[in-house]
């Protein structure tokens, strides 16, 4: 399954949930927020949200800002 993760191509074997993806990239348990195709996936729904071919995923965090 071809995904786009933070703007870069990412190949993954499906089926895959958002939680699975975060585990695979070492972000499970680390505070972050996830958007799939420009829609927030609330952190409590990560285990239920399955990813599909071509999904564009953003994994974001908080950084210094004004």
């Amino acid at each position, binding site marked *: 399954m071809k995904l786009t*993760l*933070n*703007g*870069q191509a990412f190949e993954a074997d499906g089926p895959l949930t958002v939680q699975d993806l975060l585990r695979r*990239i070492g*972000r499970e348990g680390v*505070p*972050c*927020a996830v*958007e799939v195709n*420009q829609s*927030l996936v*609330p*952190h409590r729904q990560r285990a239920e949200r399955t990813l599909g071919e071509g999904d564009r995923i*953003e*994994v*974001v*965090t*908080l*950084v*210094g*800002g*004004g």
Partner: protein
Amino acid sequence: MTATFTPTIVPAIPPLQVGSFTLRSRLVVGTGKYRDLEQTREAIEASGADAVTVAVRRERLFDAQGRSLLDALPLDRLTVLPNTAGCFSADDAVRVARLGRDLLEQLGNPGSRWVKLEVLGDKATLLPDPQGTLEATRELVKDGFEVLVYSSDDAILARRLRDAGATSVMPAGSPIGSGRGVANPEAIAILLQVLKDPTHGGQPGFPVIVDAGVGTPSDVTIAMELGADGVLLNTGIAHAADPVRMAHAMRLACASGWLGARSGRIPRKLLGSASSPWNGTFVHIPGE
């Protein structure tokens, strides 16, 4: 031995109520542009701020990981105010606000209830896009956010933002990071009248925070003397040669302006008015 100057106790300055948030400090500071996380933490502490702004950005998934901002900040003592900086449309600002809220919910920080809304017009001026800002305000209010809106110093736009449900309107003193201070004090004064004076349909308790452009402590004081409830700044501290010292100066300037604004300044006069008595002078006075 040199005597140390010990100031008398400063009269208590009441906290600032912004929606459901009670801020002990009327100075709100950003966390961007510092040399490192240690300097960020020290400057925030020196500023006395109990609310700090942060930005939402992509995780660096594909390169080395260092300590993050979240490790450096005392999150148990600070309310984090996530911003939508870098957004140029209402839709993108709403996306970023929701991501920030989800992150702060995970951290258990009360800052998940509010957002600093920025919808910018372009990258060069960093001035707000009034129409996009108003649209995003409506959408975020509908979604349950307490919205603190970065705005221009236009009083009529500010009133529209308040009427759209903004929790606070935050007019720019001058463009973000420009260090030019309150470029148009009269526009800020008019905005404050329109939003706060009951004779103009205003509400005295509606919080107005001057956001952006502040370069020096005197800029902070001028904003507060005009009647602003607070000041939000980042670059003025973070890019000073000594950010920690500058953070102390900004904190004191904020208190100074608040006290000055409520002490009844003297009327301006064209000519002088002697402080020492004429009575009892024993020298020649020209013209007498």
